[in-house]
């Protein structure tokens, strides 16, 4: 078995050496946001120290340099998710904006009253509300792929749900509250049999598995930079070129036009048509550095190590009396949500924090999932390749402390 050199990667993340409440930090809130390696910070610093100016159209040296770095970042994203063309990569603020863009520019003009948008019961609020807003404006309705008790989607009902009124399927590849990895290949295949396009929410999956949008054949794929060791406020939307060419602009502004008069505006080519205004230049460059960092480690090695962490943590946590894991699908990413008998997650989170352990407590922006399990909230341990087996032991000890104090 290849040994993943966790100590080496940890040394790239300065924050992992810090202390919280006098205890060494154990950062297990990676599904909310990941920490940043020095390389990402250096790339942003290098941009501002040596190369920065506004991009596109500038004839001077720095503008051309910044443009090259920004467009290079687009190339990096394209390669990372194996898109066919760089024109298919739109920089957005994050997953949320990517989904809103598709709802507004792709879907809404197609929708008629009574049309359906098919989501799943495990979606993050950001993959529910944009569709809900679009549905409210058009009279379309949301239909839902239900959850099974173990946290998998009940795909046996999918053929029935893919009615002739469905105009789009939007599902997550990996649940942020349950950890479930969905069989999106099957979802896409079944949807495409009915000529229904599919959007994949890759916010969680992007950092944990290899993504090949051409092999998946998804129509749209969205993710955020900050969940894959990059900066906040930047993400990418992949859309098949054939869709982008027919989509109306998302926002109006500079850079998304070819010519403007008060009578008529001619829009720029894709992808620029969808990037109005000066974009998040440092964000795109920082995100590309993060993707390069992950590529250097290889996503396959990361996935293998994280699966070992997940298996170990599942074993250790299951042995804690009164602890119940929410989400026990056979295929999961490195997320463990749990409840403790008689102890509210909020109290769990506070006590664990005092032990230096950063976990998230609450509904994780998936209130329908909480409804499904009849619980108000869970405590979520979400692991990254920089977590260690020793940290999992310490997290288990912190959970035991919670029980001692509150039990």
């Amino acid at each position, binding site marked *: 078995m290849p040994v993943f050199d966790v100590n080496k990667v940890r040394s790239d993340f300065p924050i992992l050496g810090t202390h919280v409440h006098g205890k060494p930090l154990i950062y297990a809130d990676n599904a909310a946001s990941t920490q940043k390696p020095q390389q990402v910070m250096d790339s942003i610093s290098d941009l501002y120290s040596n190369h920065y100016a506004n991009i596109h159209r500038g004839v001077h040296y720095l503008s051309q340099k910044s443009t090259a770095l920004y467009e290079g970042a687009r190339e990096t994203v394209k390669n990372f998710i194996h898109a066919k063309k760089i024109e298919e990569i739109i920089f957005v603020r994050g997953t949320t904006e990517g989904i809103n863009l598709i709802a507004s520019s792709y879907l809404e003009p197609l929708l008629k009253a009574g049309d359906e948008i098919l989501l799943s019961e495990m979606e993050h609020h950001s993959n529910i509300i944009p569709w809900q807003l679009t549905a409210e404006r058009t009279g379309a309705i949301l239909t839902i792929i239900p959850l099974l008790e173990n946290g998998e989607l009940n795909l046996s009902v999918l053929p029935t749900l893919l009615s002739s009124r469905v105009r789009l399927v939007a599902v997550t590849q990996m649940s942020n509250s349950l950890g479930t990895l969905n069989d999106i290949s099957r979802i896409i295949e079944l949807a495409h049999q009915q000529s229904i396009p599919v959007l994949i929410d890759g916010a969680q999956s992007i950092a944990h598995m290899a993504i090949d949008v051409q092999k998946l054949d998804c129509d749209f794929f969205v993710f955020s930079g900050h969940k894959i060791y990059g900066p906040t406020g930047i993400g990418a939307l992949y859309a098949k070129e054939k869709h982008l060419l027919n989509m109306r602009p998302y926002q109006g502004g500079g850079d998304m036009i070819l010519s403007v008069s008060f009578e008529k505006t001619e829009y720029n080519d894709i992808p620029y048509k969808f990037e109005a205004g000066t974009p998040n230049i440092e964000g795109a460059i920082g995100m590309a550095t993060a993707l390069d960092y992950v590529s250097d480690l290889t996503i396959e090695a990361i996935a293998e190590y994280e699966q070992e962490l997940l298996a170990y943590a599942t074993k250790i946590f299951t042995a804690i009396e009164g602890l119940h894991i929410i989400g026990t699908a056979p295929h999961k990413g490195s997320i463990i949500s749990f409840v403790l008998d008689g102890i*509210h*997650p909020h109290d769990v989170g*506070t006590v664990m924090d005092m032990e230096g352990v950063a976990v998230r407590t609450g509904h994780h922006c998936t209130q329908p999932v909480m409804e499904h399990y009849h619980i108000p909230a869970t405590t979520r341990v979400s692991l990254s390749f920089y977590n260690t087996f020793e940290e999992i032991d310490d997290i288990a000890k912190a959970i035991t402390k919670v029980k001692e*104090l509150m039990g």
Partner: protein
Amino acid sequence: MSELRELYQEVILDHNKNPRNFMKLKVHSHHANGHNPLCGDKLELYLDVVDGVIKDISFVGSGCAISTSSASLMTQFLKGKTVDESRHYFESFHDLVTGKALSEEKLEQLGKLAVFAGVQEFPARIKCASLSWHTLMNALDSKDETAATE
């Protein structure tokens, strides 16, 4: 662990496990729902106010130890107090959990509720402690003051 012991004092743990006045009031003059969407805490508060005095008060709901014990201790504390006094205690309690200076007299008036002083060290938990009190204010301010029976 000392800050944690300050937060989770025995009386708080006790009221969390065995909340007092934990029921719906069949006869009540005021009622309000409290919800903390961040952590999913939900509570329903019932008051029976007669001639400006809180004759009876109760709550039901689910929440963390801090919010449950705060609601429980609040109902015990307010029974028999006037509505005007309750508003005054709301201010004092709010000052207590947010760490504002509180006069000896006001602190003494709060009695057992002083156990929530530890919350000020945990800013994320202030909302938990004050949920029942905000719900109280909503109930008292609600226009519907006619007695309801269920």
